[in-house]
């Protein structure tokens, strides 16, 4: 049983590594804002865990549409790679990425590998190389909220309404910041008969080890019209969650790539139910 729980802890850690999305931090903040001018994002380094399937280990974001990945190669048979995703948009609105590509990686053992490929658009061809660090150690020794170890998944319900959020890092990983994100209801209603309510996310920076209160605000969307003429013209679309979601985003510097990455922890609190 002891061996079992130890192994399980490792398995859970791996599952959580994917679930908590250890991802490279993009130029944007927690709350997805459109950047004024986007720059091509082509990583030169990537970090993965051993024998953990990562379908988006390498993420490429380009300003121009129509790019494809060709001649994808790995420097070793111990690192398998695959072009798992591509999109292309010729929409003229917005200044977002028009080509997005992803390369999945799977390492059979620890090592430092080279992944090479060509970015191709029509007759244009550029060779790219990414150094992939496949290592077993994770950034966190322990992450807790109200004393509960967040590495063990049991549904995501919060153990208490408030508590201390604390992240203890492993050697070589540096904690950069912790943000707490909650729902904020935005009421853009015109009048009682013409209502519009939506929910945004809002993040604030918190200190490691700080005592925080979980949010009571559940996601809500409402669009309603009540006619003074005839009920035939009435309409109502309403969505409201039973739980309020508080998310903690821990940003840290990876030991190997020296790039910023983050892990997200979600805590749910039951706030809406029929009396």
């Amino acid at each position, binding site marked *: 049983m002891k061996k*079992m729980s130890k*192994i*399980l802890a*490792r*398995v*859970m850690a*791996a599952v959580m590594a994917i679930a908590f999305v250890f991802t490279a931090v993009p130029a944007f903040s927690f709350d997805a804002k459109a950047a004024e001018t986007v720059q091509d994002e082509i990583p030169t380094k990537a970090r993965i865990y*051993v*024998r*953990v*399937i990562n*379908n988006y280990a390498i993420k490429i974001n380009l300003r121009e549409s129509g790019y494809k990945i060709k001649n*994808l*190669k*790995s420097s070793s048979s111990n690192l*398998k*790679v*695959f*072009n*798992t*995703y*591509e*999109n*292309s*948009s*010729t*929409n003229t609105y917005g200044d977002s990425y028009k080509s997005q590509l992803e390369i*999945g990686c*799977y390492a*059979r053992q620890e090592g430092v590998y080279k992944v090479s490929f060509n970015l191709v658009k029509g007759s244009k061809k550029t060779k790219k190389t990414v150094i992939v660090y496949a290592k077993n150690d994770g950034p966190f020794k322990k992450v807790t909220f109200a004393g509960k170890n967040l590495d063990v*998944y*049991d*549904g*995501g*319900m919060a*153990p208490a309404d408030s508590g201390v959020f604390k992240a203890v890092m492993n050697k070589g990983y540096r904690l950069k910041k912790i943000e707490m994100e909650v729902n904020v209801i935005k009421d853009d209603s015109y009048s009682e008969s013409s209502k519009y309510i939506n929910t945004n996310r809002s993040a604030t920076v918190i200190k490691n080890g700080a005592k925080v209160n979980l949010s009571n605000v559940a*996601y809500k969307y409402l669009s309603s019209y009540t006619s003074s003429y005839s*009920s*035939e013209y*009435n*309409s*109502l*679309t*309403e*969505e*409201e*969650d*039973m*739980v309020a979601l508080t998310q903690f985003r821990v940003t840290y510097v990876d030991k190997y790539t020296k790039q910023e990455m983050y892990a997200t922890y979600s805590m*749910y609190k*039951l706030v*809406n*139910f*029929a009396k």
Partner: protein
Amino acid sequence: MKIKEFSKKLAAFALAFAMIVPTAIPVSAATCPSSVEVKTYKNGYYYTGTHNGAPIEIALDEKGDYIGNLKSSSVNCRVYRVYTSTSNKKAKIGVWSKTPGTYTVTFDVFNSNKVKKESKSIVVKVSYYTYSTSPIKDVLYSGKSIYSGYYDAISIPKSGKLEVKLTKGNKLKGIRIGTREAKTNIYKYKSTKNGKKITLSKVPYKYSYSSSTYSYRRENMEADTMIEITYINKKKEVCTYTTSISKLVNYAK
């Protein structure tokens, strides 16, 4: 009676008759399941993705219909209307519970004039969906424990015997194997016996879309085989434990 006069009288009679014969108005009824199964964890559970995972979906009959007076038979089973759309003629009820059992959820259906049309009653069966592995002693595939370190997703055999071992006091009720259907990406389940040979799925998640201005394609590296174990625990509660085995099927040679 002259013919002209007769036909006039006949027409008047026919019209009077038509007006007093009651027209059969069909009774519109909302459609919803009579019972649902909800899985939860010891500390409760909420499906992510707002209303998309809500366990009770109601198809309303007429535009403008909505549900109200939502009640649960017990405080151990919380319910809430998580979605309503009068134009889509749909409503969804979320369920939150951390106590396995059988509960009754009731609500009324109203029309756009706030007149009650009918009452509905749904049986909700709550059981544990747990990652807690204490009842699971081990799960072996092709002779190796699926928990023995991180198995190699490349060299794992395409088929092999599946063996489930439970700890004392827990009784195995059934095992189902889920494999992905290529067309729909949905997992289809088939029952298997403990100790029997199973074949791993070869179908990875795959999805593509294209329009005149936007296209995208996604295809994962691995094919997952879901293993759903249903057992009865020491408290005589029916529990479901799900795990999976991944095999890498897509990679550049």
